[in-house]
């Protein structure tokens, strides 16, 4: 059981970090596994952390990007009220969309926190020696590829930290044809996740899956719950789900503890 900020508050203590779970991490069955894996990592390093629990709300990212600024501002207002009440200082999140909104868009609305993506947090834990990965493990000798999410990648120029994390494994990191600044979107951003594609020749996730198949990797590392869904679907539609596993970075690290 992860303690909530409210519970810490009642005890008169404050945790070191807030783990922002996000809507996908809270409700989506696949993303819940990522949430649990990340919690296990946090428990493993023994850091004091809390979640907002029922007090957490959507950051408003999909509403804002669909064009509904009112709804975004309402969600932001409520979240900032909650976090400022608890005097939150540092946030780590497993969703790059939440990360981007909390880090770049909340400050001018009155929410100033140190916000860190779980990919970068994992890199810091590994580099500082707080998180030791066991050699071998289930990824030994496997070809792993990394999919840059738009919101960690181009939106926030985080390219190296996640790769460093994957390089800490006993496996071979291969790059996709389109990667880093040139990375191809999975098709979910800008609130596309919540609607059908516009008419076109193919789906964006299938276009991206081509790159994955071409890379010859047996594991795809993702850092975003929406990319996770999109890429898993793409791999399934190519009937390759038995050969290629699409995993979040947190799951990969949790399996290597």
């Amino acid at each position, binding site marked *: 059981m992860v303690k909530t900020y409210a519970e810490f508050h009642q005890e008169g203590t404050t945790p070191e970090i807030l783990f922002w779970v996000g809507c996908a991490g809270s409700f989506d069955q696949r993303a819940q596994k990522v949430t649990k894996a990340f919690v296990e990592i946090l428990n493993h390093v023994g850091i004091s952390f809390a979640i907002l629990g029922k007090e957490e*709300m959507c950051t408003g990212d999909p509403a804002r990007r669909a064009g509904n600024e009112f709804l975004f501002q309402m969600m932001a207002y409520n979240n900032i009220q909650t976090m400022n009440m608890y005097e939150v200082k540092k946030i780590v999140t497993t969703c790059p969309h939440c990360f981007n909104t909390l880090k*770049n868009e909340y400050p001018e609305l009155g929410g100033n926190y140190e916000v860190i993506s779980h990919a970068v947090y994992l890199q810091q834990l590994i580099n500082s020696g707080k998180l030791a990965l066991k050699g071998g493990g289930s990824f030994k000798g496997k070809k792993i590829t990394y999919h840059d999410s738009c919101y960690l990648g181009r939106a926030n120029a985080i390219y190296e930290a996640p790769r460093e994390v994957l390089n800490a494994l006993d496996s071979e990191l291969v790059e996709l044809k389109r990667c880093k600044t040139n990375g191809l979107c999975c098709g979910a951003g800008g609130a596309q996740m919540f609607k059908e594609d*516009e*008419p076109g020749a193919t789906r964006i996730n299938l276009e991206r899956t081509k790159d994955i198949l071409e890379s010859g990797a047996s594991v795809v590392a993702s850092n975003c719950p929406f990319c996770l869904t999109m890429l898993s679907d793409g791999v399934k539609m190519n009937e390759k789900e038995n050969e290629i596993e699409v995993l979040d970075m947190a799951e990969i690290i949790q399996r290597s503890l």
Partner: protein
Amino acid sequence: MAIVQQILFALITGTAIFFFYKKISEIRRNIMLGTKEVINDHSSERWRNVLLLAFGQKKMFTNPMVAILHFFVYAGFIIINIEILEIILDGLFGMHRLFFPILGAFYALLINSFEILALLVLVSVLLFLARRNIVKVKRLAMGELDGWPRNDANFILLFEVVLMSLFLIMNACDYNLQQLNHEHYAQTGSFVISQFIAPLFSGFSETSLVVLERSCWWLHIIGIFVFMNYLPFSKHLHIVLAFPNAYYASLEPKGKLQNMPAIQKEVLYMMQPELAPTDQAEAITKFGAKDVFDLSWKNLLDAYSCTECGRCTDACPANQTGKKLSPRKIMMATRDRLEEVGRNITANKSFQDDSKSLLHDYITEEELRACTTCNACVQECPVSIEPLDIIMQLRRNLVMEESKAPQEWNMMFGNIENNMAPWKFSPDDRDAWNT
């Protein structure tokens, strides 16, 4: 006779500069139709962008081959302008190679480097023509360029071919005239490239050589004036606007969307009515952008800076998968609409409603809905244009002013409002995973 030529030259120069100035003022006026946005922070970082992105063409170098060719044309353009200074002074004072006695040996070095550049420009431009018309590179052959945009691109390239050829032929004739000891032609000696063209004209009489040399000289300088005046009507304006556009480029992380303080305030007063001002006299604001007037001046500068290279569209995931959205088309549509508004203002003194708007008449809902906000277009643009910023402002207008959102988005909005999540789950279950 010479004085007639001098007067004629002065008249042509004056006319060219006058019309250029007039058109540039019009463009400036059009850009200023946009909303005010003060951009004057972090000037050192901004100058750095001008150096790296505009002068250094940093982003072009993701494709080194094309970047080098483009750099030749660009360097040729800038550096050969020094030669144009001499040509203009020669023309005005009725002299020939005015700088030669002043610069001495250095003069030959200068002209030699211009000639080498001219040749490099010539070769590059021919390769560019081939890329557009023979190889048909995808982004340069797309249907959205049909008509004027495609012709515009080819005109410019052909223009460069003509200008560079005239320059080299002129020098070749000049050398032949030097050989004949024509008194007007200073003994500069042969130049590095034109010496190979000179033999072509060696059998010509002195008079024909003079006529040919003078014709090239006049056509070359008139060509340059024509080119200068063509520029503001063309996509080629990027050679000027890339510089200010790099200076005013956003320095924020690309993921950060522009805040809307009017709505922020409205939500604040709704949640904390005690903060609301008692005298409710706030002007009604329009949300998002419907027409060019609602975009910021930087968005409009973006539109004029676009050279329609299509790197944005090439990288766009929606476009790659056959959707209607093309970031380049967004920029072209914005410029076309702005030009139309500009013509309206020029004709009627002030803008007269033409019952058209950028949204719907130039850019459709379907295009706007296809965007994943992935920022690939912004990342790719060599001249710091942000198509995404325009897309987002139009989307805001669609949703908040026209209530036009796909049904699924309306459901998502409803879910966020009622369940604090974009899906239909009970907010009580938000921590159900934690049991």
